[in-house]
């Protein structure tokens, strides 16, 4: 019942966005679509090397909505964000997420190289095939952008991330809380450089401080109790595993190349390396993603 209510609320939000955008007379449409496929070598963020599980996934997404010019240099962006993800091996992770993102961007003057500042907030719902992972997602942040030349631009951002796990089943005896109730802070520096007329190289570094979940095989419950208060047994990976919450500091490096097929479409490939550290433990994850993106 609760899930139905949440879907209705999400649907209403989408209808609200659509109605707002359809009646705008002087705004600008936003329509971004993407089809992404990729390989990840540690989808369960396992700390134990032998417990690492890998899979490939495909993920179509669409972002649609509208820009509204609030003034000559300030614009409001309201979009609906829909994303699906399907895994080849572990279909328990297949998911559908939807949400609404509202952002206000202000450009500090006239010209390409004038910096801009954006404040945004996102609210959405993540529905996963294995409902244990269903969650409400909230995100708010600020981003600062500056172009240094026609070839080179920079983005600096901070995001506050809040995830509210909506399914409290499978909580292990003696443990309180849901490992999918998470709070985190993420700072990112992204640089893009145009190599040729069509080829854009990107480099990004993010640092995340906050909660993560890790799924592992463990028999010693007492040992687990030493470093987590939130623990559930989890059959998402087609075996009996434990998923628990850890407080971690993660470094994320991304390197990407993007080839423009035309003014609206690009083919992209990127590699992402994530290294997470808790007080005693270390986990890492490698992702290779390819995508085709279209912007209206």
């Amino acid at each position, binding site marked *: 019942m609760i899930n139905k209510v949440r879907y209705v609320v999400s649907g209403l939000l989408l209808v609200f966005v659509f109605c707002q955008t359809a009646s705008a007379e002087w705004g600008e449409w936003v329509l*971004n679509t993407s089809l992404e496929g990729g390989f990840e070598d540690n989808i369960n963020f396992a700390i134990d090397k032998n417990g690492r599980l890998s899979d490939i996934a495909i993920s179509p997404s669409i972002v649609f909505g509208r820009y509204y010019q609030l003034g000559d240099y300030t*614009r409001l962006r309201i979009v609906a964000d829909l994303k699906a993800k399907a895994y080849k091996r572990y279909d328990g992770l297949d998911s559908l997420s939807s949400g609404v993102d509202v952002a206000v961007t202000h450009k500090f003057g006239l010209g390409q190289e004038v910096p*801009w500042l954006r404040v945004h907030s996102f609210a959405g719902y993540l529905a996963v095939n294995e409902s244990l992972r269903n969650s409400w997602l909230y995100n708010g942040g600020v981003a600062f952008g500056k172009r240094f030349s026609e070839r080179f631009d920079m983005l600096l951002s901070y995001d506050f991330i809040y995830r509210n796990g909506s399914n409290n089943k499978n909580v292990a005896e003696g443990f309180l809380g849901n490992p999918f109730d998470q709070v985190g802070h993420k700072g990112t520096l*992204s640089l893009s450089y145009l190599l040729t007329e069509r080829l854009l190289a990107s480099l990004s570094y993010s640092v995340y401080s906050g909660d993560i979940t890790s799924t592992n095989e463990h028999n010693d419950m007492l040992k687990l109790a030493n470093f987590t208060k939130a623990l559930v047994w989890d059959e998402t990976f087609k075996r009996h595993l434990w998923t628990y919450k850890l407080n971690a500091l993660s470094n994320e490096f991304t390197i*990407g190349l993007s080839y423009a097929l035309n003014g609206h479409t690009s083919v992209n490939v990127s590699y992402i390396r994530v290294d997470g550290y808790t007080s005693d433990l270390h986990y890492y994850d490698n992702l290779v993603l390819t995508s085709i993106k279209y912007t209206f």
Partner: protein
Amino acid sequence: MKRLAFTVVILYYLLLGGVGYCQDLISEVKDNDGNMVEYAVITAIPRSGEVKKADKEIISVIDQVDKTFIDFVTPIMVGTTLSFPNSDKIRHHVYSLSEAKKFEIPLYPPGKGKVNPVTFDKPGVVVLGCNIHDWMKAYIYIVETPFFAKTDKGGKAIIKNIPAGEYKVEVWHPHIKKSSASVKETVVISKGSDMKADFAIELKKVLSVRRAPGSLGGGVYP
């Protein structure tokens, strides 16, 4: 009878062999690799220094279609008024920070015709941009002669009906290198066949802000 013969001779002289005789000046522009160059502007400046002033009523247009300026290069004579219609269904914010003409047309809605007129009263190059869509860029080349033409996709430009006389002929392109041989000091336009003035120029590799989405989703002012 003598008067008639005299009139015929005078008319013949004026129409075919005299000062008022007009020819076309045809130019082809290639780059150093032999590729035809589009958007080059050919200007012919009379060596006599006598230049007809622009009619203030001259109005030309730079439109915006699919978030792109049409055309990429617009040559005009000093004193010309350009209008900036907007054929898109969204607002644009056109500006120039160039010395030859600094101006700004803040966010304005779609509209056709003689809208947002701007008069260009100094020679030089004006670089146009849109403050909303960073990839939008175009050039206005303001010249002091009424004799100019822009090359097409085949690299060809024709200055029509240019009066007989001696001219300094120049080529300009937004990406031309200074080292290019861009001037022909004396080109004589005379009766008979059309005159040719071809150029081989060096172009700089200039990259503009990319419009397509990047791998990180950024790249342009969001």
